[in-house]
């Protein structure tokens, strides 16, 4: 029809149309509708204070969702992020309280061990060829077990005041950790969309063998993203400890599912090859706003998770429908 015989540059309206039917566009519309709907239900929802507070709560999930997007784009998965978060928190608290490290060094030790934990995932996946699902399922249990073993189930408390700056303080009126998330999203969003590294990840996800034969250092890329995932989970662990002011070995339990839900909701295909950071972030924000807005609108928590599950399915259906139609035309 008309579209096929139109090789000229797209006009503004066509650009808009293309944006609207993109994964992110559809999701953004769903988010907008949800926000407007929730805002009509309660006047406590759409306030700066509340939204910033939600930004604080979603930072850990948001940070981990970035490397998770990378990993899922390559066709992999990382189930151990919650356990790495817990392990980092315990190493941080334990080295500080039991081994007497200065707190600054304890933070670095925690983040390094989280990164190493992620690197070990990558090593086994790349060198031994263990499927990512199996490997990270194993380390999901292993790292959590380590955290419990190291901590002997005791929690570390009584951190000095400055330590809470990142988790509970604010900078220029915005929660401190939200700045970190914004910077990370911009940097890693650009890396994925605009650099060689980003394109390599898509290539690996679309056809790993093909990518290998075209001379891409696939193994090095995979090693990097799993270590990166460990690193970001570790940073999230530090922020989490700073926010709740205590260290427990069960921190971050189940967070892997929240992260994966946000990434998939954001349009990243679980089979690899497609996805974007903006999409993922809309997914993270949408889930957080629904959680909060529904409670404010008087819906109880058990009903809220039902609604969130339904929205997940609905968003994916709408997306599939629109993608298929635009593919046909």
């Amino acid at each position, binding site marked *: 029809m008309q579209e096929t015989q139109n090789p000229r540059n797209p006009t503004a309206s066509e650009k808009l149309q293309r944006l609207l039917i993109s994964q992110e566009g559809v999701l953004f519309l769903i988010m907008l509708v949800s926000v407007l709907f929730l805002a009509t239900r309660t006047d406590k929802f759409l306030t700066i204070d509340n939204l910033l507070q939600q930004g604080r*709560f979603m930072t850990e999930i948001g940070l981990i969702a970035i490397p998770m997007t990378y990993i899922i784009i390559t066709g992999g998965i990382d189930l151990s992020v919650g356990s790495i978060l817990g392990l980092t928190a315990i190493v941080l608290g334990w080295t500080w309280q039991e081994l007497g490290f200065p707190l600054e060094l304890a933070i670095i030790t925690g983040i390094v061990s989280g990164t190493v934990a992620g690197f070990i995932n990558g090593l086994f996946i790349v060198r*031994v060829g263990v499927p990512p699902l199996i490997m990270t399922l194993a380390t999901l249990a*292993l790292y959590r*077990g380590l955290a419990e073993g190291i901590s002997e*189930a005791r929690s570390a408390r009584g951190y000095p005041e400055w330590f809470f700056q990142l988790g509970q303080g604010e900078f220029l009126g915005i929660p401190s950790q939200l700045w970190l998330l914004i910077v990370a999203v911009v940097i890693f969003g650009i890396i994925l969309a605009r650099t060689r590294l980003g394109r390599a990840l898509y290539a690996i996800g679309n056809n790993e063998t093909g990518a290998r034969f075209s001379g891409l250092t696939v193994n090095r890329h995979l090693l990097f993203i799993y270590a990166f995932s460990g690193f970001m989970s570790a940073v999230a662990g530090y922020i989490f400890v700073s*926010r*709740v002011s205590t260290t427990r070995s069960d921190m971050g339990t189940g967070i892997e599912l929240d992260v994966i839900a946000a990434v998939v909701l954001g349009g990243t295909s679980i089979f690899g090859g497609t996805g974007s950071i903006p999409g993922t972030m809309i997914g993270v924000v949408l889930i957080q706003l629904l959680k909060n807005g529904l409670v*404010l609108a008087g819906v109880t*928590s058990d009903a809220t998770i039902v609604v969130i599950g339904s929205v997940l399915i609905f968003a994916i259906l709408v997306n599939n429908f629109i993608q298929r139609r635009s593919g046909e035309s």
Partner: protein
Amino acid sequence: MKRTLAITLILALLLALVSMPLSADGHERWDGADDLAVNPLACGMGDEMMDEGDDMEEEMEMMEYDGGMAAMGDMDMAGMDIVVVDVPKLIGIGYFAATTLGQQQAAEELGNVSVSTDGPTDANIDDQIQVIDSYITQGVDGILFAANDPVAIAPVLRKTLESGIHVVGYDANSEPDAREWFVNQAEFNGIGKALIDSLVSQKGADASFGIVTSTFTTPNQARWVAEMWAYADKCFSDLDWLETLEAQEDAGLSFQQAQTLINKYGEDLDGIIALTSVATPASADAVNQAGVCEDVAVTGLGLPNAMRPYISSGCVQEVYLWNPVDLGYAAVYVLRAVVDGEFKPGDSSVMAGRLGELMVVNGSEVLLGPPFAFTAENVDDFDF
């Protein structure tokens, strides 16, 4: 494909080998106790009520009020209708359904309180924090809570107090200054003593037993284990403490862990002490199914409805608890009294409807009473 599978299997074996010494090594320490100070009660059975009474009076004189204060609002809410939200550790289990029932009864009696219950669907510290935060934003007059972690919940509770919302805890405490009062269902040493005494009375002072707990980090359970340990050490040092196993608050997992104890120790196992309202019926079920009701005594903390079949059939002699309906009931009365200005720091007791006068202990805690034994004689009188 085959190669991958083989490698995966080898890897799994290696992991198992690596983690084995970890768990075996720490055996002695894995009793699930915390490292806070313990205060075991005097030895002997049957007179625990007396002991608790003595203890209570001593502590009353010792401690000053150490709770927090809600910021003053614009208006005095005394006698006015108030909206209260209750945020338990999690929703959807029998125990917190019972506290909710008690809260509703209190609200009905008082007539000027409306209480609703909302909380995380699993016992997750962060979800609980977010739910409370949302209710601060929504603006209620009072919050009742049962903390998943005493420290982690403290910042959001302090924020609640600063917003002029009254905060009363029950079941699981927070840091004292993050709330006004805490309704203490039973002192830890009272429970520790009751459970050990129950085991000894059934299986003798040299019994071997295992424990099924929720997790090693859950504050209440860790305290009970510590107090049981201390009391057993003081009074029945011949008791053989086999192992403490974690089972979350999960019925299936609790059943498995009880089965593990039965299979692992066989003849040597004389008793199982279960520390959650989910683990006790699950342990009784495991013992029942294994056909070892005669050999293994199950005792612990349990709700009457869940325990009725096992107590009626004689498989389980007794379980202990406080009455969670009364616990929720008392929490609402305490909150109402605080709002009305009738219950202030420094007071030594508070009136709580049908429960009468409740004593203040440990500075800013209201004690519900001694632990309560559910036996074949009384289990049918309760419905929760």
